[in-house]
């Protein structure tokens, strides 16, 4: 995925529409903050998710963090490869490290999310 075409949540998830599905992952910045990812807990296919609410968790040696859904809908697909090899997320957060695909509810959009430029501004301020 090209980071320029993605939209971003302030909680460091990225999202992009791919056909009828919304693909979700976490950003390079999030990966750098977490480092040493050891475990990822993802929902099951068919589970409902709600924009701004936790859909799973990611654990690094240092700490555990919630993963927040960028959009409301139903989990259509889960990247099961991550369950065996969570390091895929740090190796390729915008590609092989994608986490779930959501079938958005009627009318749900990504319009409320940040653009790359807005997101970069946010992380620049977080680094201070």
């Amino acid at each position, binding site marked *: 995925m090209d980071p320029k075409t993605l939209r971003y949540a302030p909680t460091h998830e990225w999202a992009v529409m791919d056909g009828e599905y919304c693909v979700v992952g976490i950003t390079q910045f999030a990966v750098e903050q977490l480092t*040493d990812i050891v475990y990822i807990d993802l929902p099951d296919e068919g589970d409902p998710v709600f924009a701004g609410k936790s859909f799973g*968790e990611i654990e690094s040696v*240092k700490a555990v963090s919630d993963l927040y859904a960028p959009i409301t809908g139903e989990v259509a697909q889960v990247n099961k490869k991550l369950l065996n090899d969570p390091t895929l997320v740090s190796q390729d957060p915008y590609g092989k490290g994608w986490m779930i695909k959501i079938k958005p509810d009627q009318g749900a959009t990504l319009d409320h999310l940040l653009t790359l430029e807005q997101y970069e501004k946010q992380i620049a301020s977080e680094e201070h």
Partner: protein
Amino acid sequence: MAMRTPLYDWHVAHGARLVDFAGWDMPVQYSGIIEEHTAVRTAAGLFDISHMGRFSFSGPGALDLIQYVYTNNAGTMKDCQVRYGLICNERGGVRDDVLVYRWPYGYAMVVNAANREKILSWLEQHKGSRDVQIEDQTLQTCMVAVQGPKALEVARGLTAADASQLGYYYATATTYRGQNCIVSRTGYTGEDGLEIITTAALAVPLWEDLLARGAKPCGLGARDTLRLEAAMPLYGHELTEDIDPFQAGLSWAVKLDKGDFIGREALLRRRDDRTLPRRVGLELEGKRLAREGAAVLRDGREIGRVTSGTFAPTLNKAIAMAYVDPAHTAPGTALEVDVRGKPVPARVVPLPFYRRAK
């Protein structure tokens, strides 16, 4: 404002991620915790531990004061020997865990950064009429640890005295670049290695010399995973003012027959108290990690709490240390840990989790 070690600028310039630790801005990691951890287990890692408190004791009353506040026996130490022990309160709870150094000319003590001021005032408070001068040398000096199977090789020739000849838990007072320097065969990682103290002005040259010889810079993150695998207690987690050394499994560092010392009477009672929780090691199923404060359960009932937990990179397992009711401490006991609302199966295992091959 947080205190800074003489290596602070180096850490910042080299991309370390800094955190506040006991009032100090300390590097938590450079390249990554697991990578740094592995460097220490397989080669040599280098830690800035200048935040640790360093006291020197002089005067004829030095030994007597140390004996009065310290649970181990400093009276049987040989010149240049280093010994681990506790400083207890009157109730037998742990005020700090420390290293005592015996020199031909006096004594020294290394204490935890978080307890430096507390212990310094405790010493002053209890010195009474003893003829002893205590000097806090923390800010004039620096301290680094080089740890790992290649640590001695990395440090060879760095100081005037040959540190590779040191016995385990022995130290030498020598020189580095013409300045006074102390090297001890001690550490907090479960590996062989050295800890080096010299003047603060030489901190960066010492650090860069050790890096040039092949040591990898490591932060507090790896220091924590390393000490946890080696089951070494961390003050504020496994040791507190309310936990006694017997509960912590440190009876070997308490010499009740050495004469009077602060906490001795309470410890005589607590030694045989079978109702107090005990420190155990836990191995968890799966990769979810038990963090500090997580409840330990048996048959759904809480029997203790986790004090430290992590992913153990050398063992590739989730491990934790916990204090549990003494009825459930036998190795093999099946328990559960409440990890954020979900019970995770765990079992009691002997400590340490990791022991290096001799």
